[in-house]
């Protein structure tokens, strides 16, 4: 078809949409709702991905975690009940035996109250650990220094605070070298850690770190620890074998006995995450398919009505020399325009929805630009696909019969 004819035919489609404004808006809304749904779910998944990769980077790709029970227990939880605790002694022996380990960091968590001057902070995460903790967590003090080997060994009353706690300190006009009270224990602040922001809506800066022996004096020494083993990510596999071998030796396990400890790494979380989001993606795809189908049926219905109503117009155009392809293009263009506009509207609504979610929930929901473009194209495509049958019918109408139609 000639370009001039094509342009005219598209212009005619646009003017029909204006002429049947209400109906066109309703049809476009159908498409828009579909696109909005899909974009919102995509935005949520993207937000989960972002949070998750943030979490992964804080866990570190090159760290193995030795614990009593595995991180993720999906079944047979009773198998883990009789296991001995993982202790500081295990950590010391691991450090001696492991060749591939860059650093071995035992640690434990508790929650406790921090008192700064007259201010009380409750539910602060208390980390009992060693001087190597910064190497595992990847953050170093922004001010002052971390705990020293001597302080850890002697279990001295020293504390390094996270950025949130530091904020309360500076409000009280306090800083490094000043004192705070942790569960009633007076401790001297030696360092302040930089801010790491929040993850899944939880601040990562709401903590204090103290020497592990001091931690055990505060909370009792019978708990099971976690031991972080930092290795070169390239040798993660061999390192894991080495850690398992060493732990079996340390725990005096016979060859036939099962491990009475677990070695965790990031992969476990990745697997779990992928299993969970895989289901979510599947649901999103299913929803997308349904909404597209509903919107598509809407488009087809409205275009069939349009063709029926304008049969006479089609007859006139044919009498004046419109080829079937011109009629086809006119109605296809109309369908594509309506659903393309619906796609555009859906993108706007979807963006607003994800922005809203990002604003009122901790999830950093967002829609990638490529998805936005794809959505508009998708709308156009749906129009072309579902508009085809009605447009085809229009183009095949016999001029004589079409002209004989009333209206």
């Amino acid at each position, binding site marked *: 078809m*000639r370009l*001039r*004819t094509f342009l*005219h035919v598209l212009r005619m489609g646009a*003017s*029909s949409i204006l*002429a049947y404004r209400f109906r066109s808006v309703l049809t476009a809304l159908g498409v828009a709702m579909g696109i909005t749904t899909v974009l919102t779910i995509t935005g949520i998944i993207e937000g989960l991905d972002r949070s998750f990769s943030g979490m992964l980077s804080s866990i570190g790709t090159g760290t193995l975690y030795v614990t009593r029970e595995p991180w993720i227990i999906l079944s047979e939880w009773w198998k883990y009940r009789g296991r001995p605790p993982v202790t500081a002694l295990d950590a010391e022996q691991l450090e001696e035996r492991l060749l591939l380990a860059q650093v071995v960091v035992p640690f434990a968590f508790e929650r406790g109250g921090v008192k700064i001057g007259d201010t009380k902070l409750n539910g602060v995460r208390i980390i009992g650990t060693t001087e190597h903790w910064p190497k595992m967590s990847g953050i170093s003090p922004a001010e002052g220094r971390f705990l020293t080997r001597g302080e850890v060994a002697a279990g001295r009353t020293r504390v390094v605070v996270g950025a949130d706690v530091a904020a309360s300190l500076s409000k009280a006009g306090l800083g490094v070298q000043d004192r705070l009270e942790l569960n009633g224990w007076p401790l001297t602040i030696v360092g302040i850690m930089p801010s790491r922001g929040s993850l899944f809506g939880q601040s990562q800066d709401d903590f204090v770190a103290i020497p592990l022996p001091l931690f055990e004096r505060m909370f009792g020494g019978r708990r099971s620890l976690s031991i972080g083993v930092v290795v070169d990510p390239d040798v993660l596999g061999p390192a894991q074998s080495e850690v398992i071998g060493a732990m079996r030796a340390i725990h005096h396990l016979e060859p036939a006995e099962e491990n009475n400890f677990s070695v965790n790494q990031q992969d476990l979380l990745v697997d779990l995450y992928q299993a969970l989001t895989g289901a979510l993606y599947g649901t999103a795809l299913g929803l997308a398919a349904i909404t597209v189908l509903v919107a598509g049926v809407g488009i087809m219905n409205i275009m069939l009505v349009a063709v029926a109503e304008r049969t*006479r*117009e089609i*007859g*006139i*155009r*044919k*009498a*004046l*020399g*419109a*080829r*079937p*392809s*011109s009629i086809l293009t006119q109605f296809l263009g109309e369908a594509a325009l309506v659903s393309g506009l619906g796609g555009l509207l859906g993108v706007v609504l979807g963006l607003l929805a994800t922005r809203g979610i990002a604003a009122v929930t901790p999830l950093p929901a967002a829609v990638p630009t490529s998805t936005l473009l794809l959505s508009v194209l998708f709308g156009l495509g749906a129009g072309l696909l579902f508009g085809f049958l009605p447009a085809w019918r229009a183009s095949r109408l*016999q*001029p*004589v019969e079409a*002209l004989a139609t009333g209206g």
Partner: protein
Amino acid sequence: MTDPVIELVQVKKTYTMAEETVRALAGVSVTIQPGEYVAVVGPSGSGKSTLMNLIGCLDRPSEGRYRLSGTDVSDMSENQLADVRNRRIGFVFQTFNLLPRLTAYENIELPLIYQGLPGGQRKERVNKRLDQLGLSDRQKHRPAELSGGQRQRVAVARALVTDPAILLADEPTGNLDQRTGQEILGLFRELHQTGQTIVLVTHDPHIAQQAERVIEIRDGLVKRDGAPLKEGHA
């Protein structure tokens, strides 16, 4: 010698409607020379509408040949027929058949758009017809804003804008009052005098008298073909 504009040879047309075969044209042979003004008359059901549809290339004959200006159009494809309608035939209908959402100008321009003519040439041709039919001050109006006579003049302008071989008018005065109808018939006479071939389809013998030749159709056959009968004989 130039080819006849229309040359129908033993044209038949049958329709199949729910197991019943209706013979609308039973073998019609008609030849119309360039510049002729021909009226096709007959009561409803006579087959004259079918004949008009065939002449206008809106339909194809079941049997027989139809040569339009020497070109056989009997077996043309839909696209070819569309192009023939576009370039060779100008339709004027009883109900005007203007597109309601287009202005007078845009209605007249439409066949030229389907022809793919560039904007400048379209403008020139449309303006020429607007002037010819005294519609220049109405070109921005939509059909609903025009009187019946004005609408039919827009339709005539649209029919003529492609310089067609045939002006094919189907009851062109049927929806007009007496005076306006006479105005349109006067217009046809003028066009005839400039050499335009006109085929006028009507059921009204008085209107048929306007033509220089009358073809009477009855029961799918040509009953009479010749000069119009004198007033009073009809």
